């Protein structure tokens, strides 16, 4: 295990963490404001990837694909909100979980029916092709760095929106005590539509950005969804700051654990069992970390509500 490998995997982990944050941010805000648990949020990420890949192939340009996929993802999110989700706000979490689970079944199958089960390819844009030299003899793809930069930029933008604007103040107030905000004359439904649409678009954006490096297939939203849940549980539900820190943490632990643990274990045991135990342990690591953090702080690192 060399320093170069560690550097590359660390960067990969941060980049995955940034993608996770884009998905988790919408999830945590929607839950914070409306007390609504939306399993179908991962589907939004998948739709983003599919729409981006198809539109990029159709227009022949990654950038046009990206620009067109964002409003398309927004429209999908708002249609779902209008059709299904808004009938669930007054219901218990169990109903919300099940109904949004039904939405996942439908959309995963719809994607399979339209695009087929085989993974879709999306080419890296020419502008971001090639690699940069991190160390002598060690290249790192420019596109992956672009994901990292774009994700951090969006995170910064989100921070300004939530912490420094009037709408952000309303969203934070809504997350702390929604009925009080409604009683003060704020249209909480309208505010929620806004948060929801924005969250859907962020997840869609993450999907488009991920499409050229990860495989675009019908189950891709589910994996990200569950990790996003881990992120917002660790970070404290409703907290964007918590989601950001937890997302980077989860991204790095997940990536480093899966790639480095087999090598680490080989120092203390034979190669074949080390590979197996390492793979098993590596995939468990994120959840073990979550269990440890929750054992100490049951409401996450940055709980919003006392």
């Amino acid at each position, binding site marked *: 295990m060399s320093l170069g490998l560690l550097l590359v995997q660390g960067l990969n982990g941060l980049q995955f963490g940034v993608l996770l944050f884009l998905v988790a941010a919408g999830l945590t805000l929607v839950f914070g404001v409306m007390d609504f648990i939306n399993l179908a949020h991962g589907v939004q990420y998948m739709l983003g990837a599919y729409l981006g890949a198809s539109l990029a192939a159709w227009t022949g340009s990654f950038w046009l694909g990206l620009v067109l996929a964002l409003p398309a993802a927004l429209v999908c999110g708002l249609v779902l909100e209008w059709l*299904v989700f808004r009938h669930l706000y007054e219901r218990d979490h169990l109903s919300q979980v099940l109904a949004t689970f*039904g939405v996942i*079944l439908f959309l995963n*199958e719809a994607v399979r029916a339209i695009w087929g089960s085989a993974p879709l390819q999306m080419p890296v844009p020419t502008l971001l092709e090639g690699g940069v030299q991190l160390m002598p003899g060690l290249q790192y793809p420019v596109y992956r760095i672009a994901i990292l930069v774009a994700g951090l930029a969006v995170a910064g933008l989100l921070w300004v929106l939530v912490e420094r604007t009037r709408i952000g103040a309303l969203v934070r107030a809504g997350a702390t005590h929604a009925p009080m905000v409604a009683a003060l004359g704020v249209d909480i439904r309208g505010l929620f539509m806004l948060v929801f649409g924005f969250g859907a678009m962020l997840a869609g954006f993450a999907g488009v950005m991920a499409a050229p490096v990860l495989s675009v297939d019908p189950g891709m939203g589910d994996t990200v969804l569950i990790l996003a*849940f881990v992120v917002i549980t660790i970070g404290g539900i409703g907290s964007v700051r918590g989601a950001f820190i937890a997302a980077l943490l989860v991204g790095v632990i997940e990536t480093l654990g899966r790639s480095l643990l087999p090598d680490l274990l080989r120092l203390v045991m034979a190669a074949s069992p080390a590979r197996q135990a390492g793979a*098993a342990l590596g995939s468990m690591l994120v959840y073990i970390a979550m269990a440890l953090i929750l054992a100490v702080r049951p409401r996450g690192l940055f709980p919003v509500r006392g």
Partner: protein
Amino acid sequence: MRAALVVLAGLAAAPFLGFGEGYSLTLLARAMILAMAAVSLWLLVGGAGLVSLGHAAMLGVGAYALVVLDDARITDAVVVVPVAMGAAAFFALVTGAVAIRTSGVHFIMITLAFGQMAFFTASSLAAYGGDDGYTLYGRMTVLGHRWLEDRLVFHYLCLGLLALALLGTQMVLGSRFGRVLRAARENALRVEAVGFSPYPYRLVAYAAAGAVAGLAGVLLANATEFVAPSYLAWQRSGDLLFMVILGGLGSLQGAVLGAVGFVLLEEWLGHLTEHWRLIFGPLLVLSVLFLKGGLVGVLRRG
């Protein structure tokens, strides 16, 4: 319990009413096994108010315990069943110890995450087939006899165990233990005020439900003679939760009605079209939105 008794009687008579061939019996066995898992989940959701979205992991731990023993050529039920149920209960105890400290939506997410952890662990067990799954050498023996190879025996075994699970859960709910559990679901604060701590009660219920689900996993593995990580997929946890709600949270028999209804619906839609989930998903949404009280509720009103 009337509706559940009718369903159980129907299942008992099914082999003599023209459902005796292999395919129908396989389908019915699947329905009964999933009903057993749904009954154990009902104890958590309906009984204790703990909405678990990781219940399939218990099923899977039971099934994989069987796989490990099968690989070592230990196939007698006398050993396999207690070990598998114990393994599932232990997994439930350890994960439950963390999960039950939280409540509400945190609990849903944590059980989902632990379920996913078990899923990835099963996928990485290369010695037991990894992603591809593991084909058993054969069904379990009972004290050296190969009784389970017989379709009818297996059918009635599943039925008997389902009835036992139903009866046992009913008795637990009626006991002092069950009353504390149900009281804590309604108002944990008041339960604490009269001097009970809900935590150990919930944890024991969680482990017990895990053990029953583990037994269901053993039966499912025997029914198909094949175990794969898909046993633990989070979609199956969602399916189980849907069975419980479809039947109705108001009474335990809902779990049986829901599971049988679910399996039959899935089968029927599967015959209609390859993309049956396009119909199934919206049906699920509609049933959550409009079928309040579940099938049991419909039967009561009708």
